[in-house]
């Protein structure tokens, strides 16, 4: 599998995906 960080847009998309993942983690932890 290709490393997404080798591609600029792979990096940006990974950043957005990580944002969504962290959003749901924080939402679950904050218990809102």
């Amino acid at each position, binding site marked *: 599998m290709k490393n997404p960080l080798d591609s600029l847009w792979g990096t940006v998309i990974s*950043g957005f995906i990580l944002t969504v993942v962290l959003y749901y983690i*924080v939402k679950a932890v904050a218990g809102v």
Partner: protein
Amino acid sequence: MEMLPGIYRWIHILAGIMWIGLLYYFNFVQVAALKAAQADSTAAGITKHVAPRALFYFRWAAVVTWLAGAALLGANFAAAFTFQPGYEKIGVGAWLGTIMLLNVWGIIWPNQKKILGLVQASDEQKNKARRVAFLASRTNTMLSIPMLFFMVAQTHIAI
């Protein structure tokens, strides 16, 4: 004295623009430019004259951004870093920013010194340093996206 938090925020944003702006310059502009410049043997212009200056402001802006952010957190510093109730969002932003700072000083800069010839390194070591610095820089670009989201979210996005 009541002006201080506002001043810290101002410095945090000023230095943060320089840090992340230069990070985006490296990733969105310089990587591709260097590749093209190597093809027509003009890469020295970038590696000799542009990259060292950009890296100087990049790594010191990272320090100023973090220090101003820590000053802005003030008494809430520990609450943010331990994700106390109400500080979860800024805590994630602060941790991501801290990981990025450590990445700059612990991985990117030591490897860039080898690439730019500021410290002795064999061709093999330089090639390895190039790959490590590249991936660390790309990691910071990726982390900057959620980092900025959670910085903004603390006061502007309800979760």
